[in-house]
């Protein structure tokens, strides 16, 4: 195995999040999520459907960060159709999170109070609708106690403590996938839906993750390492999906 970067480990983690998802819209948002999703489609998950980042569903594997890439268009998906897919169901979205908490509540809206934010962020965007309708995962490129917080300021994406208070019917399409950060992979496969450390990226210790997290993670007796890329996967990432290495600006390699 040739050496590979932290960003490449993150791409593999993202790709794995889409394994065995079947024929759904894989909708990763962000540079590394897009690379990882396209890698999964190019290799072990060819049934995935993906967008061009705008209003088209494309069947070829597009590179990221290049102007006018070639597109093999399979379908038309303007924003109105995107809501059809979201509410119809066959979609796994991976969103960003400025803050995420122990039960997977996500905040991208604002910091501070709803009526007068100290920091206005994106607004609720599609987070409430995504989380109540689709499998939702998160990508956090800057894992720290400021992003992994005990309690989010505003709940834009719905976590497991919130769906406990809803009717079973209302919550039946809710389901969080993984949280992938620059340090590791996390899931909610615990009795109460609390966040669990699933794997650490190579070169990261469990202690480092604990001290970068603002709440108590569920940590099993043995913690796996995020799997290494294959030579074929590295070839896809480096030469075909991200030839300009935009992944390294999202997650710089640790010194």
């Amino acid at each position, binding site marked *: 195995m040739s050496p590979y970067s932290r960003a490449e480990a993150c791409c593999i983690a993202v790709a794995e999040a889409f394994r065995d998802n079947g024929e759904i819209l894989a909708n990763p948002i962000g540079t590394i999520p897009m690379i990882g999703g396209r890698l999964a489609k190019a290799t072990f998950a060819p049934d995935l459907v993906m967008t061009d980042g*705008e*209003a*088209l569903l494309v069947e070829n594997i597009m590179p990221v960060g290049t102007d006018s890439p070639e597109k093999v268009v399979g379908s*038309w998906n*303007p*924003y*109105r159709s995107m*809501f059809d897919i*979201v*509410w119809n169901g066959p979609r796994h979205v991976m969103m960003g999170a400025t803050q995420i908490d122990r039960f997977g509540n996500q905040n991208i*809206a*604002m910091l501070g109070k*709803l*009526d*007068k*934010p*100290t*920091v*206005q*962020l*994106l*607004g*609720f*965007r*599609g*987070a*409430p*609708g995504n*989380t*109540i*309708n689709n499998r939702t995962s998160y990508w956090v490129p800057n894992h720290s106690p400021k992003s992994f917080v005990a309690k989010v300021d*505003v*709940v*834009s*994406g*719905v976590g497991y403590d*919130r*769906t406990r*208070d*809803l*009717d079973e*019917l*209302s*919550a039946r*399409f*809710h389901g969080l996938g993984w949280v992938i950060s620059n340090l590791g992979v996390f899931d909610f496969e615990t009795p109460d839906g609390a966040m669990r450390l699933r794997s650490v990226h190579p070169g990261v210790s469990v202690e480092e993750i604990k001290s970068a997290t603002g709440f108590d993670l569920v940590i099993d007796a043995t913690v796996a390492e995020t799997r290494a890329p294959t030579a074929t996967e590295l070839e896809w990432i480096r030469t075909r999906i991200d030839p300009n290495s935009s992944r390294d600006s999202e997650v710089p390699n640790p010194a």
Partner: protein
Amino acid sequence: MALPDKRLTIDEIVAEIQDGMTIGVGGWGSRRKPMALVRALVRSDKKDLTVVSYGGPDVGLLCRAGKVRHVVYAFVSLDTIPLEPHFRNARQSGAVSATELDEGMFLLGLQAAAWRMPFLPTRVGLGSDIIAANPHMQTVECPYTTEKFLAMPAFDIDVALIHMHRGDLGGNGQYLNVDPYFDDLFCMAASKSFMSVEKVVPTEQFLSEGPVQSLRISRLMVNGVVETPNGAHFTECPPDYARDEAFQKEYAASAKSDEAWATFRAKYLDVSEAEYQSQVGAR
């Protein structure tokens, strides 16, 4: 063929807007926004507006110019600059209040108004702080299954402003980019709707410009039309033109200080649309 002639000037359209009205703005983010009409509103003495928008620089400009009391939004973004700096300043200083929505709830607010329904039921918002942000919103129970839904209220929009690629003098409108956004719904949701277009063409010319599916705006939805070439600038309006990223950066930088805003405003906003376009062309 005698279509009603609904051509108006920019100023005649602005004259239809009264202080305190709710204005719906078509487009999405920094894409195909009716910026010539927005600039005319900025130049006007209108105030206390509520703006309903899949927000971009339309929201930021109107907030910074002091025209806005309240914003109904799910996001305000310049796309390549994710956070709209003027909108952020207005929110963080408390200059404008806001109705926080999810993007899909926003669609339902438009759709309910367009269909003359008081609300539409949805799962969207359940469990999230959308509920805390909108204490006036109610839930309804399904009469068949007892499932509970959020009752998304219809928007109440006085005037809608949209920008299309082509239109005829009767108010039929055609988009030539990849996404119609929600412009038809804005028009049907509003009491009155005004459309700016890159070019007014004879109706017979539409189908040489694009397929029938591109004729998304019917004159049934439109009260007035105005030709504003480059009128979506600096937002994108492909295939006619791309976003003017350099100008957008200049606009975003004008949020850094009162002096920067004063300079930007004097050069680009305290001037007529024709002068604006010649300033833009001279860069």
